[in-house]
């Protein structure tokens, strides 16, 4: 289970201090999926980054299966990230010196959970099988987004954080991605936490939350 307690985070910007998160507390039970809705700039990405151990909160704790990740040192957090989590970034964060195929198999290999048949299935499901040998810069935004998703799924993490995973996709592909996402997370009892604008995507999640005024509220289960 992933638990966020009293997390606040502020940034220093030219106009002064901007408080993005003001004491967010929330529990994400294992195996369920959450959508985080909120306007642009409401802090959705920040919250995801804090939960994924990428950004340190000013106050509060983030615990994954009773491990407080901000007590760990950097290596410990990196290990945790490598082994338990997967992040799908808004800008995909693909490694551009590697091919699409190498990008997808990078994390499972790193995490020691390489499963070639599972990878093939995932790749097929996301319609990426014919671009595996291409490099990211040769593919479209949608393809890159799907690659990022595939990379997250194939490492079979206990939790996936996804920042606007359908932001660049047309309707068909959105449908397809949602299908794959929900199906895979259900099968692997992986938690899925999605920050999104998409009502469609949000509707497919177990629970929907809204980030507003720096706090997170549950709106639908």
């Amino acid at each position: 289970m992933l638990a966020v307690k009293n997390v606040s985070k502020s940034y220093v910007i030219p106009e002064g201090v901007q408080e993005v998160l003001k004491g967010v507390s929330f529990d994400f039970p294992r195996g369920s999926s959450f959508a985080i809705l909120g306007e642009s700039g409401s802090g959705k990405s920040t919250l995801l980054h804090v939960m994924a151990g990428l950004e340190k909160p000013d106050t509060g704790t983030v615990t994954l299966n009773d491990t407080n990740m901000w007590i760990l040192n950097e290596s410990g957090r990196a290990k945790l990230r490598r082994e338990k989590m997967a992040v799908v970034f808004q800008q995909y964060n693909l490694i551009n010196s590697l091919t699409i195929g190498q990008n997808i198999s990078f994390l499972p290999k790193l995490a020691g959970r390489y499963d070639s048949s599972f990878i093939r299935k995932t790749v097929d499901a996301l319609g990426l099988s014919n671009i595996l040998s291409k490099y990211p810069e040769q593919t479209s935004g949608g393809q890159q987004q799907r690659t990022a998703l595939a990379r997250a799924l194939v490492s079979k993490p206990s939790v996936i954080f996804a920042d606007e995973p359908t932001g660049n996709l047309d309707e068909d592909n959105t449908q397809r991605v949602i299908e794959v996402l929900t199906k895979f997370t259900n099968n692997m009892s992986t938690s899925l936490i999605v920050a999104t604008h998409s009502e469609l995507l949000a509707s497919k999640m177990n629970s929907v939350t809204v980030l507003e005024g720096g706090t997170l509220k549950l709106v639908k289960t």
Partner: protein
Amino acid sequence: MSKPRSLFSVFLVVLTHWKRKPLQLFLIFVGLTTATALWSTVKLINESAERSFNAAQQLLNQTSAESIQSINGNYFPDDSFVELRKQGWEVTPILRGSPPYEPLLTIIGVDLISSMTSSSSQRLMKTVDFERFMADSKPLLANQRTYEKFSQNTVLDTFIILSDLPDGYIICDIGKAQELLGLEGRLSSMEFVGPIPNDMTELLALGLYFTETNQKNEIQNLSRSFHLNLEAFGFLSFVVGLFIYYSIITMAYEQRKSALRNLRVLGISAITLSSLMILEIALFALLSGNLGMFVSFIIASYLLPDVSVALASLFDQDMTHIISFSPSFWILSLFVSLLGAITASSTVLWRASKLSPLETGKKIAWVQKANYTLKGQAFLCVLFSLVACILMLYGDGLLAAFILLGLIILASTLALPTVLWTAVNFILSFKIDNPIFQWFIADTKQQINGLSACLMSLLIALSVNIGVNGMIESFRQTFLGWLDQRLVSELYLSVKDPALASQIELYLDEKVESVLPIVKVPARTKNILIDIFGFSPDLTYEENWPLLQAEDMAWEKITRGEGVLINEQLSRRLQAGLSDNISVISNGRYLTFKVLAIYSDYGNSKGQIMIPISVFDEKFPEIPHLQFALRTYSSNNEELRRDLIQKFDINSTSITDQQSLKDFSTQIFEKTFSVTRALAVLTLAVAGVSLFTSVTSLSAQRISQIAPVWAIGINRKALAKLEFLRIFTFTFITFIFSVPIGLVIAWILMNYVHLEAFDWRIPAKYFPVQWLELFLVNLAVTFVSVFLYYFSIRRASPSDLLRVTSYET
């Protein structure tokens, strides 16, 4: 966009890039300033050295290769001059000597009327009008220091300061010189100012002989090679500086491409855009060109004393070392800086002139791009290598040798990216199934293009260092070994008076183990000027002379007068081998000698024939024994030395001991190459700066490439280590590659450049310890270059890493 004002605002937009990237701007200046500075430093050194050398040479009439002197080495009467003139010989008289009260002063008396057409007289007449020189006050020409030193002794005389003259020399009218030296009606030599007659027999009747020292050619060859050497270095440094500039300007272009595209969208033509970029480059080039000139004046004035000392010891003359400012040279340097900058920016300018407002066309993966570049470079590499091969087979002369050197350096530089690529692929072929390893390799390959410019300059610097040091060390060891072999006698004695010389010879016969006279006479064979030496065949020579080739029982045959030894230089020039006959003309006599042995004669550019002294005396009875090598019983000869000085009232400088002679020779050598070595080190330093700048300016870009890997779960420390390992891998491979290239350079230097310039081959030696040293330097350079970068990654804030700005690459 024709209005100048709006054009200006566009220009400002173009320039804003540098406001955002001050480091890049700084590095642009570093590159161009370095390029200009090193190039013009070498130019300044060369010009200044050459100028002061030529000035002194011209004034002292020393360049005159041919002169007439008296057979017995004494002064001869004015009448001999008149006699030759009456026979139509266009000669001019010279009286050279030191007054008894001032042995350190050399007075040179000249006659401007009979030497009117010579360049030395014309130079003089620019300073003093001839009427005044020969009639009114008969002034003495000297430089300021000589004037201050010697003017007290000649209170009644008028001095004219001529700064071109070397220290300790006074030039005046020949009548005045005769008076000052107390040698009325006497001359010391005559030089030709017109054609040289074929028949010289008339001279013998006058007790004179014609000597052709080829000192002129020798000096010209040496200084030409010396200057070419420097020039090559200057050029290399220039190229290295441009590489820095090139890598930065290319990177900057990629970063500002979207901004430039926006300008295109706003309706600014590609031509306008690239014109503005040319303007920008010109601005950089002019600013850093000027800066470079200042820097070069500083470096040159620091290095020049060494150069002067080197040349001075080579040519036995003091040099004044003044760096003079000339506006035309300044402008030339700016022009060179500009030309270099434009050339190095040509690819960027080409791309800018083709820049379309929208990103179009098929996307090409970096792998394909890299492949294209590699293929292009490989093609050029092969092309240059082919030309180099042709040159190696058919080229002739010093210039060809230098071009060959340049081609080899260029070709190997262009081969470097391919070598790196292949090396990385080779590592990859081990098929290690580790994702980080695979990523590391893939990323390394991707980096080759970005870093290749600075790695190329590092390669040039490393291989040139290996090559030049290899040559210098080979030269040095050979030369020192040869000195040890040649300078075996404990003392060397030289006197001017033949009568005194024979007295001393007799006296010494009982005092020392053996007295070995050394005599020489200039000679000519097939239009080559050489020296014939007479020596006493002695165990000393047999044991110590480094013979390259010899017939059986060569020494015995030579002692019996059946043949001679010649040096390697002469053997090469005449293509004469063992048992060949060599015909020479010397002092009006035709002689033929059979070659029995060939000896190595390093450091000498003149051909030599060695004949037994008995044969020499028989052929040249007019040449007195004035120099002797003394083999003594003990190694401490201070007593004997003092004894000789006291007993025969000879100058202490007439007796030289072995050690000081060796020291002197070594010193000449060291000075000659110290400048070359300094420049080699400087080139390496510049390459280090280049590596540092490239790595530093790459770091911003690298952060974005590393961020995804970090996000996936590899900590910054591990990433920083990998980054360091990557750059180290590059410099390591570059170093490994530079060793064979360096050896090739050394080989060309020794077998082509040096052989062309000096006519003797340096036996090549290898110096792995030096390479190791260089490797450590290389490692240090890598460490220093990566230092900042390493920490910038370790300290990168997560928010920086998360703010993944995507660069177009």
